[in-house]
């Protein structure tokens, strides 16, 4: 999802009997749904996995501003522009809530940024696709934010207190994002033929990458078992993906748009939709850095970091100078 393929310990999950008393007490707290707080004991693997997951999530929020930011200056009306601006600002805020949750685990903010820029930390594959038309802004809000909400709602129950609280806050704000996207789609499908085609084209391009957001199938997801035992990932990738499909198909039908999957059909026995095979080669390729926009996204982040350096240093120097003047005066 926003955090795909988060590496955990890579080892099988220990049973309670295999744990030392401290770790066992920790696991029992988790099993009893008691939140873990920053200063509490936690196994090193738990801390590291969480830092990876939360920072990846934060990076996704930050990089996620780029495809949408691309349309702020070209939004069709002043109202749409103001809405998009507010939405993109929210994404920056969400990134900041998450960075500060990761910092409670001992990760430093600048270190996390450097890791992203060095390509050591990942962000969601979805943001490596281009936003070519205004309809893409609709599709991103509807599908990408829709998928994000599906993931984040369950993360509110995450065992780590600061992460779970950040999720509560993010979920409250996120539903505006999805609605504004769907609202754009509703407008387009009621528009001219060209506008309707634009809406369909956006759905065609964003559908499969949105399904990939939930990460590899459970059977291939090596690190999931440990993360689920620690409750830092309460629901599995495949289950979240299925919920997303079940929720989204009727929304597409309402719009009169066609989901680009010939194998998609309602399965009466399961009470859920069956859907076609996902091209996982594409997913892994994008993660490796070969998506349509990987280079562009990283270059934009690098530029922002480099161009802001004099400003960050300057404000720090100013703060120090003010402080020393104040001390001299006292």
């Amino acid at each position: 999802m926003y955090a795909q393929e988060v590496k955990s310990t890579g080892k099988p999950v220990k049973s309670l009997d295999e744990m030392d008393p401290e770790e066992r007490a920790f696991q029992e707290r988790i099993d009893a749904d008691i939140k873990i707080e920053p200063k509490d004991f936690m196994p090193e693997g738990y801390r590291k996995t969480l830092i990876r997951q939360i920072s990846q999530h934060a990076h996704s929020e930050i990089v996620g501003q780029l495809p949408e930011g691309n349309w702020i200056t070209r939004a069709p009306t002043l109202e749409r522009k103001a809405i998009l601006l507010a939405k993109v600002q929210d994404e920056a805020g969400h990134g900041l809530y998450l960075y500060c949750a990761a910092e409670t685990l001992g990760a430093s903010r600048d270190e996390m940024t450097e890791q992203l820029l060095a390509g050591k930390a990942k962000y969601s594959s979805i943001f490596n696709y281009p936003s070519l038309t205004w309809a893409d802004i609709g599709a991103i809000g509807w599908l990408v934010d829709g998928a994000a909400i599906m993931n984040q709602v369950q993360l509110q129950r995450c065992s780590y207190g600061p992460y779970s609280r950040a999720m509560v806050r993010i979920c409250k704000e996120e539903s505006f994002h999805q609605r504004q996207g769907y609202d754009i789609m509703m407008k387009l499908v009621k528009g001219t033929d060209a506008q309707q085609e634009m809406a369909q084209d956006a759905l065609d391009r964003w559908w499969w990458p949105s399904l990939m957001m939930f990460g590899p199938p459970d059977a291939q997801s090596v690190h999931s078992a440990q993360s689920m035992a620690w409750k830092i990932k309460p629901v599995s990738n495949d289950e979240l993906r299925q919920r997303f499909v079940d929720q989204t198909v009727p929304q597409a039908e309402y719009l009169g748009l066609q989901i680009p999957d010939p194998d998609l059909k309602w399965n009466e026995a399961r009470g859920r939709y069956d859907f076609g095979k996902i091209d996982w080669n594409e997913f892994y390729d994008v993660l490796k850095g070969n998506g349509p926009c990987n280079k562009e996204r990283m270059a934009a982040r690098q530029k922002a970091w480099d161009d802001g350096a004099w400003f960050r240093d300057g404000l720090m120097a100013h703060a120090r100078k003010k402080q020393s003047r104040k001390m001299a005066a006292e």
Partner: protein
Amino acid sequence: MSEEWPLWEVFIRGQHGLSHRHVGSLHAPDAEMAINNARDVYTRRNEGVSIWVVRAAEITASSPGEKGPLFEPANSKVYRHPTFFDIPDEVGQM
């Protein structure tokens, strides 16, 4: 790498007369910028009418290890809760 901006903890007082509540943290070079940033990060939807910021390094917190000595003494003092006392119905609201 240049020096990281210090970390500030942010407290917001909402509109309904509740006290300031911790909402999260942020980085800023000084207190004034910390307030400005807190406005943008934590009050985009009218969440507050007052902001406090304090350098994270200035906060002293109790440690989980002290939980017993600090909080257990309260457990045995059930008489501090009004429900400890039975008041007959005839007495009326108390």
